[in-house]
C-alpha cells in the first residue's frame, strides 16, 4: 500500500517537472544542430578533398567509390566535349594513324622534330626522290607532312636544310643504299587480301 502511494507520488512529480520544462525541450533538436553547424570549421574545397582522401579507420572503399564515380563523371563529360571538338576539326594531320581511302590509299603522316631547321623535306620512292616539303605552322620545331600512299613498301629520307637524315624514328626498318641510310615504311599491312 505504501509502495503504491510512493509510485503515484513519483509519477505526478515527474509529470509536473516535464510539463514545466516542455518549452525548453521543444526546439532542443534544432538548436543542437544549429550549434554544431556554427562550431564546425568551414572547409575550403581543397581541404574538403584532402579530408575525403585522408586515410581513416572507417570505410576507405566508400571514399574510393565516391572518387571513382566523380572521375567517371568527369571522364564521360570530357569525352563528350572532345568528341564534339574533334568532329568539328577533323584532320588527318592530327593523327599518326593512317586514314584509309576507299581505293586503299592512305594519308600517311611524316613527322620530324628539327628545332632550328629552316626547311625540312621528305624524299623517297613515293615521290621519285623529289622533295615534298614538311611544314611547321606553329613554329614549335615539329615538322609534318601528310602524303597519300597506296599499299606497299616505301624507302625515304628527310632533308633538313639540305642535309640528309635517313633514320626516321617512326620507320618500320632501315636500309643502306649507296652507303647511306634510308628509312622504310610498310603501308597497308594487315589490310585487305590481294
Amino acid at each position, binding site marked *: 500500500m505504501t509502495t503504491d502511494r510512493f509510485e503515484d507520488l513519483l509519477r505526478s512529480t515527474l509529470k509536473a517537472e516535464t510539463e514545466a520544462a516542455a518549452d525548453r525541450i521543444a526546439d532542443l533538436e534544432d538548436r543542437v544542430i544549429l550549434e554544431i553547424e556554427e562550431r564546425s570549421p568551414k572547409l575550403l574545397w581543397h581541404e574538403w578533398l584532402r579530408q575525403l582522401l585522408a586515410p581513416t579507420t572507417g570505410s576507405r572503399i566508400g571514399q574510393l567509390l565516391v572518387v571513382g564515380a566523380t572521375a567517371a563523371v568527369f571522364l564521360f563529360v570530357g569525352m563528350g566535349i572532345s568528341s564534339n571538338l574533334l568532329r568539328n576539326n577533323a584532320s588527318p594531320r592530327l593523327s599518326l594513324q593512317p586514314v584509309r581511302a576507299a581505293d586503299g590509299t592512305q594519308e600517311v603522316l611524316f613527322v620530324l622534330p628539327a628545332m632550328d631547321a629552316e626547311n625540312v623535306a621528305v624524299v623517297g620512292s613515293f615521290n621519285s626522290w623529289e622533295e615534298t616539303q614538311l611544314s611547321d605552322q606553329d613554329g614549335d620545331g615539329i615538322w609534318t607532312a601528310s602524303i597519300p600512299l597506296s599499299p606497299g*613498301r616505301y624507302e625515304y629520307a628527310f632533308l633538313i636544310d639540305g642535309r640528309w637524315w635517313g633514320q626516321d624514328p617512326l620507320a618500320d626498318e632501315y636500309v*643502306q643504299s649507296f652507303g647511306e641510310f634510308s628509312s622504310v615504311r*610498310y603501308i597497308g599491312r594487315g589490310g585487305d587480301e590481294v
Partner: protein
Amino acid sequence: MIRHRQLLVGFALVLLLGLAVTAEIPLHEFEQALHGIPVNDIDAMLGAIELGFGQPDFPAEQLLRLIDRLAGRPAPAIEKEAVLRVITHAIEEGLPIEGMVDKAFEGLARSVPMAQLENGLQQLHILLAEIRDLLYSRGIFSAGPGAQSTAINALPIERFNLLVLHISEAIDSYLSGGGSPFESQLLFEEVHERLTQLQGVILDPMDVELVFERINPSDLTQVALTAVS
C-alpha cells in the same frame, strides 16, 4: 533510228581511241628526252623502250622523268648513257624495271657519282635476272599478260614480277648494307622478312608460300655471289 545508233557507237569509239592515245606517252617524247642527254645509239634505246610498252606495269612516265633528270645532271654524256643502257637492257630481257628506275632516282638525288650509280643498277639488274631464272628452275612460271593461271605454279606475270622484284631488292639491300653472301641464313631471313611484310598487302600469300616451299638459303647465296662477282 539505226543511223542514230551507229552515230552513237562511232562517237564512243572515237572517244575510247582518244583516251587510249592520251594514256600512253608517245615515243617521240622519249626521243626528244634522249636527245637532251644526248645518247649515241638512240634507235636501240627507243627500240627497247617501245618493247617495254608491251610489258605489264611498265613505268613509262617514271622512265621519261628519269631521262629528263639524267639530262639535267652535270656529267659526261657517255656516263649518263651507260646508266640508261643498264635499264634498257633489262627492258629487252623482259625484267621488271620499276626497282631500277627508283634506285636511279635515289642515286641522282643523293648525287652519287655516275659510275657508282651504274654499278648499283648493274647489281640489281643481275639480281633480277638471276632470281627470275631461279624461280623458273624451281618450277615457278609466269603466265602471259592478262592470262588466268591454270596451275598453282603458273602465276600471272604481274604477280610473278612482283616476286622477282621484291626478292631481288631484298638481296640488293642486304648486300648494300654490307651483308655477306656466305651468310646464307641471314640472307634468307632478309628475303623472308620482306615477303612476309608484303604478303596480303601487295603479294599474294599463296605466291609467297610457294617461294618458301621451293627456295632455300643456299639458292640465295648462289644468286648473291653471282651479283657481287
